[in-house]
């Protein structure tokens, strides 16, 4: 069961990573990257490192996403 859940998480991680590269809309890319961080947070927790999971949730999914969003709102939304 746990093994199957791991595989689902890894599949989601890899597909999120590929989507971030392929998306031309930077706002969508930033939001997919947030999803990547949230899944990564679950992986850290399942691998037995709650400290890293907390950091990933706070920094990866929280603060960096906001900083990406400000940067997009201050520059442009489309990748050229």
């Amino acid at each position: 069961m746990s093994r199957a859940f791991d595989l689902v998480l890894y599949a989601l991680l890899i597909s999120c990573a590929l989507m971030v590269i392929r998306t031309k809309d930077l706002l969508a890319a930033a939001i997919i990257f947030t999803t990547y961080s949230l899944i990564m947070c679950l992986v850290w927790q399942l691998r037995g490192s709650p400290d890293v999971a907390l950091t990933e949730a706070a920094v990866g999914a929280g603060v960096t996403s906001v900083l990406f969003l400000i940067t997009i709102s201050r520059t442009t939304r489309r990748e050229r």
Partner: protein
Amino acid sequence: MRRAFVIALLVLASVPLLYGVGQLPPIGSTDNPTYTHVVPRYIQQAEEEAGAENIVTAIILNYRGYDTNGEVTVIFTALVAVLGVLMITRSDSGPSVPISPVPVSPVTRFIVRTLSPFILMFSVYMVLYGHSSPGGGFQGGTIVGALLIVLSLVTESADVQRLLPPAVKVWLQPAAVLAFGVIGIAGLLLVGSYLAFPVEGDLVFLRVPWLTVIEVGIGVGGAVIVASIFWAMEGSA
């Protein structure tokens, strides 16, 4: 032609990498170098030697204290760099433009304002209980920073920034570096070397207060740095 060159380069680069991965010891084997050097000592003696029930905290703040000292310096330097770059490129074109053209929904504002005391309480818990449970100064501090950011987004940013007058902010931004400096020099004077924690003798009672000072310093410094970077970027239209 160029595409073929890139693919050839990637294949070439993957050969040593895959060879290296193949040489790694099997996952979970008890003979792995990661389990045979210092780890048994950390697991058996961290609590009595370092004074923290959470082994991760004992390693981060005590055994590997120099590393963490360097890391907080890196984070502070990052803030200085961001502020420096924005200071050069800042255009003094009147009041800052709002980040989103859509006004904030009253529902969002209500939820954020209702939850914020609980978020603050959770982060204080995380900072203070970091030495006995997962968490610690950095995680708790980042949550306070994120709280300040989200409050700036849903209410008037200027009102939130008024919580930290510039004269106070300047001293809170390097709080983590300062806390490490103070504890490091205290260790130098009382124990004998920089950032040394007393292991035995009369001074052992100092360990938990010292750990707490460092945790609170990292928490306050982290929170103010995260929020300051946000405010600096938000103000630069």
